[in-house]
């Protein structure tokens, strides 16, 4: 959860990026490298949690509850197939929110990592890109792992499923960027926990992962449509099962991209503001 190395790691990474003033590596790569150094120390615990949670959901809901759902025959596909692509998209959401929550707040408040970066020749954009790159890698690994688990359960119905980890990354970036902005704004770790409770949890439960969004009361459906996860779930399900998404694929993908762009702009503004102290 700490996500990051020591300030010395950072110095080494930044120095490696610009030996004798020659820019050999993009500075964002130095930031990415820094986070990977930190990751080396904590990967066991995070692999366990970021991979185990969706798999447990898959077994507990998809397999166990799925037997009862399929008995009712209220879905036009086995529940296992319905839930698996949704959980894969949720994997992206979960890792991205975790990694852009406490670690970002901590890097401002306790470890002061960003202040160290800002005093190196790094722009805020580089810092954000580097850390987003790190988060993308994390999502990609976890989502691919989850995909491999789903195959023997018969939850995959199409070769297009190879694209689902990329969908997870897109969902991850769409929530990570505004979350960066939020984490750069708040002071209290308790506010972070509140964000998970009122941001992540409802999104996870009401974005069509566990049951179709059409079942929601009419007034709530636009809310689900406005949030990023539902779009990811639709894209992921379309790819994994070769079925039509609710809306055209380009609209879903474009909407997620819009979240990324707006989120990045907000994050940049909040970072600059907090670093200016």
């Amino acid at each position, binding site marked *: *959860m*700490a996500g990051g190395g020591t300030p010395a790691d950072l110095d080494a990474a930044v120095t490696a990026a610009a030996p004798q003033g020659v820019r050999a590596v993009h500075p964002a790569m130095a930031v990415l490298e820094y986070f990977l150094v930190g990751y080396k120390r*904590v990967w*066991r*615990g*995070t692999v*366990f*949690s970021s991979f*185990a*949670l969706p798999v*447990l*959901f898959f*077994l*507990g*809901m998809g397999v*166990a*509850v799925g*037997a*009862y*759902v399929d*008995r*009712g025959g*209220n*879905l036009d596909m086995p*529940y296992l197939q319905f839930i698996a692509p949704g959980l894969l998209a949720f994997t992206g959401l979960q890792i991205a929110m975790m990694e852009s929550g406490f670690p970002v707040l901590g890097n401002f408040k306790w470890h002061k990592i960003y202040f160290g970066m800002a005093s190196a020749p790094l722009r805020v954009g580089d810092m954000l890109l580097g850390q987003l790159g790190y988060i993308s890698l994390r999502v990609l690994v976890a989502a691919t792992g989850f995909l491999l688990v789903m195959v023997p359960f018969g939850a995959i119905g199409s070769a297009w499923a190879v694209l689902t980890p990329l969908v997870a990354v897109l969902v991850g970036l769409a929530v990570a960027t505004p979350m960066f902005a939020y984490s750069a704004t708040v002071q*209290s770790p*308790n*506010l972070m*926990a*509140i964000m998970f*409770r*009122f941001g992540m*949890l*409802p999104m996870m*439960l*009401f974005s069509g992962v*566990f*049951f179709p969004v059409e*079942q*929601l009361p009419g007034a709530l459906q636009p809310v689900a449509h406005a949030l990023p996860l539902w779009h990811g779930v639709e894209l992921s399900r379309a790819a994994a099962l070769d079925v039509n998404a609710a809306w055209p694929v380009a609209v879903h993908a474009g909407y997620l991209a819009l979240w990324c762009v707006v989120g990045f702009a907000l994050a940049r503004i909040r970072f600059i503001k907090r670093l200016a102290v």
Partner: protein
Amino acid sequence: MVTTLVTRAVAGDELRARRAGAVTGRNVTAFRAGGAYWWLVISGMAEPLLYLFAIGWGVGALVGDMPLPDGRTVSYLTFLAPALLAAAAMNGAVAESTMNFFAKMKFAKLYDSVLNTPVTPVEIAFGELGWAMMRGSMYSGAFLVLMAVMGVTTPALALVAFPAALLVGFAFGAIGLALATVMRTWQDFDYMGVVQFALFLFSGTFVPVSSYPVAMQVIVQLTPLYHGVELVRGITLDMLSWSLAWNVLYLVVVTLAGLAFAARRMRKLLRK
């Protein structure tokens, strides 16, 4: 005198309710100050409700009715609600007794100053547990009221279920304190979170335990949340029988064992 001897035997140190109460009081003061912590605690009530609506009602529409062991069939939401109550009692107690307790011990160094007072490590453990229980009972109480209003259970049974939910909280609070004393870093909480989540999913919460493979049934019946779910579901859905006594006994034993372990570990950690 008798209580002193009992607490000495269980906790291995002096234990006075007044001093443990002062530790609880500190948390009440922090809570009442308002701000983010207040919101965090209060909003915790929303979590089981969100699950109830999403899974009980949303997925429930796909599942249809569930059979109960006594032959009745009930809606999926009715089946699920008592289990979510037990799980909420677990989650509330564990949150306060592990993460927050660990943070206070290791990072805020809160107890360093408390230990300079007559308060003993055991009293700190009990004081923290007391607060975890207050927090847990808020959640359980609110959820039970909702269950009664929705007609999942009757007000009378809800009243009986309240102390049962508290017992579940006690057991997990004690386990949580014990775990927090052996945690080394935040990374360890990742593992704990996964185990906790597995208990949440596989304790007969979402489907009857009888639908699991036999080997898994045996394992599940050894874990604490299973007994919590059985107890709370048995009471709220009016399936009172003597088998519930076993669930109560199991939870009481777990509570005492957890507390005894936590108290001894804390003395070791804090009195260097």
